[in-house]
């Protein structure tokens, strides 16, 4: 056998051994760390998910951030500032987790800006009134918590650790959102109307888009869509990235939110919601995915605005980041102007 052949055989042998080690770690419920060997597909799936998650934190600052200057009391202004600040922090934790997979934050931001990587389409929904800030925190952060609690046990160590820090803060955001809506519901009839209107508009973006596509037929999708979703979910669960199907988490969210809405005295805009004694869960109406996707897709007006806002901030700040680099390098670039 020639040398090349020996090398190839060695590589195959190594790969099989490494792969067995990787599978053994997963089977034992241990965390995969950046230094560990991992299949390329695992790395790609993780990177995609963590990047999308990070981008969602950053783009998700926009709909609420737009209400910072208009928050109706100084207490609410402080609470909203702290929340938007937390989301920026979540973005940073998650970019740091993604960087352990060998891609820099600058590259990830470029991929966001160029549309190569996505963020949760939920945030392509416009925040039209002050009550939207409450509805976003209660419903979308509420959905995020349901998603993220199992991710604290995800198989990739840096991601699991980032999620543990994020989860504590998210739970707080949900309570604050609920509290904001609660205050509006105790106020004038118009205030309560504003709260109801915001909940009407944010319900579907939360329940549909925060959990990803349907991956069981129970999710109301046709068999083909469900099968496509299921294939991705199966892979992700086999690698211990996800622990539950999208539809399972969606159900968990609905079960949590329905009684809370009742306590607020608000209705959820789904006539199909009713307690199902047999299942021990709330039933809810099927989601028309196709129509819904189109309305909040990449080409929608708000999607364009979100990305344009983000790109403008990045481009306007380019000279600042260049200055930081030049200063850190200790060069005398600036002297030319003096």
């Amino acid at each position, binding site marked *: 056998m020639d040398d090349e052949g020996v090398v190839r055989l060695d590589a195959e042998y190594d790969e099989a051994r490494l792969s067995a080690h990787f599978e053994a770690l997963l089977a034992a419920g241990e965390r995969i760390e950046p230094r560990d060997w991992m299949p390329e597909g695992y790395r790609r799936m993780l990177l995609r998910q963590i990047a999308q998650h990070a981008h969602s934190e*950053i783009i998700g*600052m*926009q709909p609420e*951030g737009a*209400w*910072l*200057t*208009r*928050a*109706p*009391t*100084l*207490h*609410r*202004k*402080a609470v909203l*500032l*702290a929340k*938007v*600040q937390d989301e*920026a*922090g979540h*973005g*940073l934790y998650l*970019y740091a987790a993604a960087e352990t997979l060998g891609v820099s934050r600058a590259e990830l931001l470029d991929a966001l800006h160029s549309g190569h990587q996505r963020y949760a389409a939920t945030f392509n929904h416009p925040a039209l009134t*002050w009550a939207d800030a409450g509805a976003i925190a209660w419903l979308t952060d509420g959905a995020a918590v349901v998603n993220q609690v199992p991710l604290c046990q995800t198989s990739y160590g840096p991601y699991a650790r980032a999620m543990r820090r994020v989860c504590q803060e998210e739970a707080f955001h949900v309570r604050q959102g609920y509290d904001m809506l609660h*205050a*509006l519901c*105790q*106020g*004038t009839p*118009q*205030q309560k109307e*504003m709260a109801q209107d915001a909940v009407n508009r944010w319900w579907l973006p939360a329940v549909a888009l925060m959990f990803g596509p349907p991956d069981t037929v129970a999710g109301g999708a046709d068999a083909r869509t469900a099968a496509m979703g299921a294939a991705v979910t199966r892979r992700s669960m086999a690698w211990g990235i996800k622990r539950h199907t999208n539809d399972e988490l969606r159900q968990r969210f609905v079960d949590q939110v329905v009684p809370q809405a009742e306590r607020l005295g608000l209705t959820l805009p789904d006539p199909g919601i009713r307690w199902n004694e047999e299942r021990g869960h709330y039933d809810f109406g099927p989601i028309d995915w196709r129509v819904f996707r189109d309305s909040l897709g990449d080409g929608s007006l708000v999607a364009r605005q979100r990305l344009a*806002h*983000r790109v*403008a*901030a990045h481009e*306007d*700040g*380019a*000279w*600042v*980041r*260049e*200055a*930081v*680099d*030049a*200063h850190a390098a200790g060069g005398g*670039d*600036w002297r*030319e*102007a*003096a």
Partner: protein
Amino acid sequence: MSSTDTAAYALRLGDDALVLAQRLCAWVTRAPTIEEDLALSNIALDLIGHARTLLAHSGALDGTGRTEDQLAYLRTEREFRNALLLELPNGDFAVTLARQLAYSLYARLLYGELAASADEVLAGFAVRAAKEVEYHAMHATGWTVRLARGTAESRRRMRAGLETVWPYTGELFEEDALTRRLAAAGTGVNPAGIRESWEKAVTAVLADAELAVPAPSWQASGGREGLHTEAFGALVAELQSVHRQFPGGTW
């Protein structure tokens, strides 16, 4: 020392903090880096805290019993008493940072002295606030030097930022009958008395940045009497829009 004097004084300081916080809120999601989104929102959050304490104190002492929110949300443009520096439009990052530098170095000195105020609420507030503005001053100082000694463009912008805000810094140190009565009673700080220390502090930072202290050809004034810039009406309208939308509402 009349309590209405203390109320009027707390209102000036509170409005300074509130109006600057309002300006900084507009940076969030627009900063050059995510770290700066965090830093600027953090500073704004501190300033909102300062405004809340100061406005609540003012309302409690001025005989009207107004709350912090009634003062923030139900006064007209002409009733605000902040210095004009704080309401200037944000401009680019260098203009905002030049204002942060001027204000945070001033506030650090002001609160340092106010910690000895005869008014217990003001004294207690100042002890806490002085620690926070110390961080704001570090933030502004670091950026001033980095931008001045970064690239040719950042240096040009930093210099332009300083030149934009400098004519508005003199107002921070203006004395009037109110500050004289307060200083005499040991309740407030004589603003003219901290000017020299402020100039020293600013000169040291700008020396590090290898920039000259701007020599303003004119000095803005009027905020303490409620005579503001044209941009201020829009700031107040935005601040108060939701609150005023539902009179008698609960938030």
